């Protein structure tokens, strides 16, 4: 052992010469890791997150580049092909009307996801603004917003949409793709925002009494700046999780409305319409793929959004997972 010097009987560890001051020194310039950066670090290692991202990327590709998946035209229908079995280039055969099942499923992604995404954006923006105002200002403003949202909350979402859309169907019977999407989105958003309002209000109420908000007030931040810079960003986490999951719920709601004949009109290619049109086949027990292919696409997409929400929830709140 080279550490043993001549005259020394046994090994003695060298004195730790790190000056004490260096240990005590705190790097004051280091930016504290923010919540989202830390969450991203955890997300990167989450299997759930990559599974969800994978699913959603495939769906996004279907929406923007449908020709990658199918060469057939979803709207061309030839009754000669009614319920034709699968053939080369048409992996799932044909519908009763003689349209390519796979092509309709690929092209149907656009309308269904558009409804989900647009509704979620509107609902999140409305809910975040109203919830933040109600929670932050309290008093009469809070009472007004809370009671107002209670009213919309008291009508179950699907029932409300049934009424709104049957009225709008009478008022604007003719509308194009975006017009039809807009009607469904408007009906869903009108009655779905109170859920996010409640959540946001709760989160803001919790955060506005925390010490860092007092600290910001102490160094002179105005009320508005406090709300914008400190409270809202910190209250967003649960709302983002809830919105991601509700995106899936809205896609399901659109398909349920289509099933009732109140979703997108029949000339729009959407999963809801295709599943709804295929219901008579299921009763006969034949040509099941006509229903199950669009239904599976819908379920996988919704699962993708729910899994993404779950993964983000776990990443933002690691305590919940360890328990």
């Amino acid at each position: 052992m080279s550490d043993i010097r001549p005259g020394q009987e046994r090994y003695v560890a060298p004195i730790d010469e790190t000056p004490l001051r260096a240990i005590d020194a705190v790097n004051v310039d280091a930016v504290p890791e923010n919540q989202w950066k830390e969450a991203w670090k955890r997300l990167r290692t989450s299997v759930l997150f990559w599974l969800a991202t994978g699913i959603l990327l495939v769906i996004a590709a279907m929406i923007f580049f449908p020709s990658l998946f199918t060469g057939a035209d979803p709207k061309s229908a030839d009754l000669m092909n009614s319920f034709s079995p699968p053939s080369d280039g048409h992996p799932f055969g044909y519908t009763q009307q003689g349209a390519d099942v796979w092509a309709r499923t690929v092209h149907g992604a656009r309308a269904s996801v558009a409804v989900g995404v647009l509704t979620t954006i509107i609902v999140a923006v409305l809910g975040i603004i109203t919830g933040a105002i109600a929670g932050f200002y309290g008093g009469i403003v809070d009472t007004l917003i809370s009671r107002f949202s209670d009213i919309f909350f008291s009508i179950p979402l699907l029932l409300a949409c049934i009424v709104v859309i049957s009225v709008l169907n009478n008022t604007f019977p003719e509308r194009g793709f975006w017009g039809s999407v807009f009607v469904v989105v408007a009906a869903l958003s009108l009655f779905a925002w109170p859920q996010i309002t409640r959540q946001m209000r709760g989160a803001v109420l919790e955060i506005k009494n925390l010490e860092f908000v007092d600290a910001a007030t102490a160094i002179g931040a105005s009320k508005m700046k406090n709300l914008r810079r400190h409270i809202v960003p910190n209250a967003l986490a649960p709302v983002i999780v809830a919105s991601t999951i509700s995106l899936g719920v809205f896609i399901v709601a659109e398909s349920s409305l289509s099933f009732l004949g109140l979703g997108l009109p029949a000339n729009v290619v959407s999963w809801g319409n295709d599943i709804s049109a295929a219901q008579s086949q299921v009763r006969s027990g034949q040509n099941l793929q006509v229903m199950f292919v669009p239904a599976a696409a819908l379920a996988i997409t919704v699962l993708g959004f729910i899994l993404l929400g779950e993964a983000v929830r776990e990443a933002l709140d690691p305590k919940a997972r360890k328990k």
Partner: protein
Amino acid sequence: MWWYVGKRLLQTIPVFLGATLILFILLKLRPGDPILNLAGNKPVSQEVRDALAAQYHLDDPLFVQWLQFAKNAITLNFGETFAGQPVFDLIKQTFPVTVVLAVMALAIDAILGITLGTIAGLRRNGWFDSSALVVSLLLLSVPIFVVGFVMQLVFGVKLGWVEPTVGPDWNIGKLLLPAIVLAIANFAYTIRLTRTSVAENLTADHVRTARAKGLSNGLVVRRHVLRNSLVPVVTYIGINLGSLMAGAIITETIFNIPGIGNAAYTAIQKGETSTVVAIVTFMVLVYVLMSLLVDLIYAVLDPRIRYV
């Protein structure tokens, strides 16, 4: 307690008025002349027009018409269908089946959801918990009508265990499959809520105390964990009645059950907007009353609520 009951009752009034206002506005937004609609789009003489306007309060200010609408809803006077049948008669004929169906669905949801959720919560992160999580996520992603068609196909058409559709002479046996389908929509949430709630309560102080004083595991779970865990679950199941009624429209249509949901579906198909609005108004009325009831039961179960 009475103070809480009073407060909760008072809160119900603006909610009910607001809900009727929304429905009333929607009804008013319908295009066309309501009198011509009533008369089947035939030309109407001025006397008939005046008489109809007086009968349906069409000349009153909108505000008064709305109060009239709200009053009609409370007194269950919903007008007539296009065929001339009072909507309330239609509701009286169809509502009992829906109530039976909804109660069966609630029972299935509560029994299965709470049992499976408790097992998953007690053995958190075990194989049962993980598979329950996967199954509940899958159930959440599939629309209820697809579940309905699959069940109908498998158990009704292929296996022949039950009749695929119910038809006018219904009984509890026939309603079992539709009730399961209706329950599935909420089942996933019930499992997850129970699981989280049980898992949280397992680490609570009072549970540790109960163990420390030597209670058996079974007693601790039954008396101390479950009782406390079930409070949010019971509320959730109660609030679910609303989504059950919306789900009933779909389930009753698939299985051809002569319930209120099916009546709503038929009215939608015929484009009878006023009947649709009347039925939905009735459902909202039931929903508002049920959530009031659930909140009051909740206050009895959990004394903490009364003092908040």
